[in-house]
């Protein structure tokens, strides 16, 4: 594999600098946020490189678990931040995090034990990138689905209550909204699978090919990952929507939208 020197990276960075200068010259006002984002990206990735280097060197279950928990908590925070109207209190954070835990973690551990099956099963070179991809994808799916559920329930509260008045159960009254939310949570991965290889070369496969892996091996890994992501997203979204739609009602089948926070300005 060809390693990149600092000079190579500086050359590429020069392109971004030129773009920033162009933005300043054309008064687009983008240069500031562009440079900050670039700087953040370099610092964050360098740091994670150092962390991964350390963890790969130790290869201990404790360190891998710690890293996994940090990743999970960060993803949970991200899911919460993307909600316009989130559940108040611990639910807002715990719901998405819990759903990702049971889907991403379970599917990743299953894959490590059975399909990849190396020794030890938690070897960080496999475990951490795999979990990262699972979390990244289930995160978007769960965030989109929850946002759709709470927003639609808020907009259609009169309809939900009308259905309750006519004697429908809470499950019947929110069924269509939940199905719609499920669809929007799954759309991303379904589109990604449909477009894979034709419109886009998936990132992981590209990376493996760049690193010198035979294309068919890279493809097999990518297919495995797609299966895992689809299953993980589906289970995670289902769990999150089930819990959240339960939370919107009480045991007397009353719509309790006061469990949602007001949208941010």
């Amino acid at each position, binding site marked *: 594999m060809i390693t990149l020197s600092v000079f190579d990276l500086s050359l590429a960075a020069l392109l971004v600098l030129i773009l920033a200068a162009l933005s300043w010259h054309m008064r687009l006002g983008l240069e500031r946020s562009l440079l900050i984002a670039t700087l953040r990206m370099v610092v964050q990735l360098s740091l994670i490189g150092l962390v991964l280097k350390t963890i790969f060197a130790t290869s201990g279950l404790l360190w891998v678990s710690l890293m996994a928990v940090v990743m999970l908590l960060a993803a949970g925070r991200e899911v919460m931040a993307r909600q316009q109207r989130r559940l108040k209190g611990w639910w807002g954070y715990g719901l998405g995090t819990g759903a990702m835990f049971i889907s991403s973690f379970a599917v990743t551990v299953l894959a490590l034990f059975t399909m990849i099956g190396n020794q030890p099963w938690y070897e960080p070179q496999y475990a951490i990138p795999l979990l990262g991809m699972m979390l990244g994808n289930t995160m978007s799916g769960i965030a989109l689905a929850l946002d759709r559920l709470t927003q639609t329930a808020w907009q*259609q509260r*009169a*309809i939900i*209550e*009308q*259905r*309750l*008045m*006519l*004697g*429908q*159960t809470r499950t019947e009254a929110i069924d*269509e909204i939940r199905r719609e939310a499920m669809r929007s949570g799954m759309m991303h991965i379904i589109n990604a699978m449909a477009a894979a290889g034709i419109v886009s070369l998936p990132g992981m496969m590209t990376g493996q090919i760049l690193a010198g892996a035979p294309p068919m091996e890279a493809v097999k890994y990518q297919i495995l990952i797609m299966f895992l992501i689809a299953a993980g997203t589906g289970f995670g979204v289902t769990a999150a929507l089930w819990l959240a739609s339960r939370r919107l009602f*009480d045991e*007397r*089948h*009353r*719509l309790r939208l006061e469990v949602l926070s007001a949208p941010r300005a």
Partner: protein
Amino acid sequence: MVALERPPVSDPLLRVSRLITHQRGPFDLSIDAGECVSLRGPSGSGKSLLLRAIADLDPHQGEVWLDGVACAQIPAPQWRRQVALLPVESQWWLDEVSAHLSGKDCPWLIPLGFGEAALGWQVSRLSSGEKQRLALARALMNRPRVLLLDEPSASLDEVSAAALEAVVSDYRHDTGAAVLWVSHSAAQAARVATRHYQLTPQGVQEGEP
């Protein structure tokens, strides 16, 4: 000595006892089977909130009994099928009218002034008055034992309002249902109801229409 036999005291069909909802109340009222009672009060006095609480749509304190059975003892969806609330503004979520009327034939369409064709109408093209009358037909499809009507003829002309009053009256006589009728008009209250409640900050008081 011969014990005097007490006349059998029948429970009211609907009894509301010490009901507190949204910091209003306590409210007490009762309606016998086959009886229609009006409820009036200034806007904002909580008439709609009281009806919502009776239908168990809002959290509340106190208890509501239907024929001697407490609301809390019945699953909520079953309660709401028996204690039907007709809100001021009805909601329709499917494309066609018929999709909202569970069951095959709706015997109230013609008395309410509709033909059979109304079942195929698009909900998006209904006028507010049509919605109001069709909402009553839809609510009656559950064969409720109590009707909570929140200004059911607010957007109806005189002819349609008379038709609606007749349908409610017939249903009440046929099934022995109890009706609580919120109305802004004293004339309508006097016409449809035999007893009259007034909603005040002190609670529900019986009085003139």
